[in-house]
């Protein structure tokens, strides 16, 4: 059952040290910055964070990294023009890194959510990222065996939720949110607005409420300051 919370702090309560946390977003688009800020205040540490990138600039995920709260990053593309926080930690040997091809990252979380035990995948065959992994030829093509990527918590930014937890997103900010919501024990979502059941078109719901545990409303920042 989805609960709607008055604050992001209430929404992130109870995240434990050592948790694996999925963090939505592709760069800053879809990054749940307010939930991450709340997680920084909440205090959980020794985290494994799964996210496409390893933080941009000094806010959001980068701020969590700067606080020294992340033991390991699992991501597809850590190195970016503005990933200086991660770069510094990595070069100082203060953070572990597992690089995963972006499609495997998405598909492994999808498998976790869908009950798939493992899958033979065409990506990365013959490359260093498949080294040591089981391979198999099927119908003349070689595949690598990949395993589900499950997590304790997912932090997701969506656009609008209804009180039942159904979600819609905005444009390419949708990215990893829907698949992360399926792969975590507890999915926590920030949205700009919560509407009553019936306020979203059932044909256009992207994440059904069954995948959503907690919702917190965060009004649009640009709106709040203008």
């Amino acid at each position, binding site marked *: 059952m989805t609960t709607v919370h008055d604050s992001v702090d209430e929404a992130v309560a109870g995240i434990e040290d050592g948790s694996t946390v999925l963090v939505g977003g592709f760069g800053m688009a879809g990054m749940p910055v307010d939930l991450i800020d709340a997680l920084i205040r909440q205090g959980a540490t020794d985290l494994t964070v799964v996210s496409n990138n390893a933080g941009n600039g000094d806010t959001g995920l980068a701020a969590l990294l700067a606080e020294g709260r992340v033991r390991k990053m699992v991501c597809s593309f850590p190195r970016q023009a503005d990933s200086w926080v991660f770069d510094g930690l990595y070069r100082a040997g203060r953070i572990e890194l597992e690089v995963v091809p972006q499609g495997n990252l998405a598909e492994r979380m999808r498998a976790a959510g869908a009950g798939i035990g493992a899958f033979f995948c065409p990506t990365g065959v013959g490359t260093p990222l498949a080294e040591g992994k089981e391979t198999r030829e099927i119908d003349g093509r070689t595949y690598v065996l990949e395993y589900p990527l499950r997590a304790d918590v997912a932090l997701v930014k969506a656009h609008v939720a209804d009180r039942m937890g*159904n979600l819609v997103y905005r444009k390419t900010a949708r990215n990893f949110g829907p698949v992360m919501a399926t792969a975590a024990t507890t999915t926590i979502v920030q949205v700009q607005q919560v509407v009553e059941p019936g306020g979203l078109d*059932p044909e256009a719901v992207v994440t059904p*409420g*069954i995948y959503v545990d907690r919702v917190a409303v965060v009004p649009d920042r640009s709106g709040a300051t203008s």
Partner: protein
Amino acid sequence: MTVTVREHTDRGPLSRDEIAARIARDIPRGAYVNLGIGQPTLVADHLGPDSGIVLHTENGMLGMGPVAVGDQVDPDLTNAGKIPVVELPGAAYFHHADSFAMMRGGHLDVCVLGAFQVSAGGDLANWHTGAPDAIPAVGGAMDLAIGAKQVVVMMTLLAKDGTPKLVRDCTYPLTGVGCVDRLYTDLAVFELGPGGAAVTETFGISYDELAARLDVPLRPGA
């Protein structure tokens, strides 16, 4: 700790509708529930509108409402038994791969299924009688059996010929192995699992009478 069976010997066995009501009573508020085709659909009649329970149908919907009547009938909106239903506020539609990912990924809290046979260890047989001339049809039964957090079976305890349908080992082809958590019947409610069958409640029969009727390892339940 004293383990006691709630024996309701002051009444007869439960009717089909009473079994459904009994199941409904145990489903937690706000649960996501799939009701299999046939008898289990009766459970819906006993879920209060304020229960917050959300019904899933395998053909791609959460927030399924009751059977459609009159002008509500829409051939594009049916339940898993192909019967027209209505949509509740807060519903969501999704395609079949997403629907079964939801089922197989363990996201449904409860599913209620009918059965030909259930074993004391929780094996389920509900898709095929094994009769040589029967046309096999499995639908979503095997996916539901292994997917929901809690798998509940609703059936009469005895077949028409009086033989128990709760057995040591299923003789009909299996739907799933060790998957049934609870069994609700007209005569008793059971918790099933690797340790065998535990009886939590009886209706119109005492625990001892029940034990005498069944050929399975039985114990009083919590």
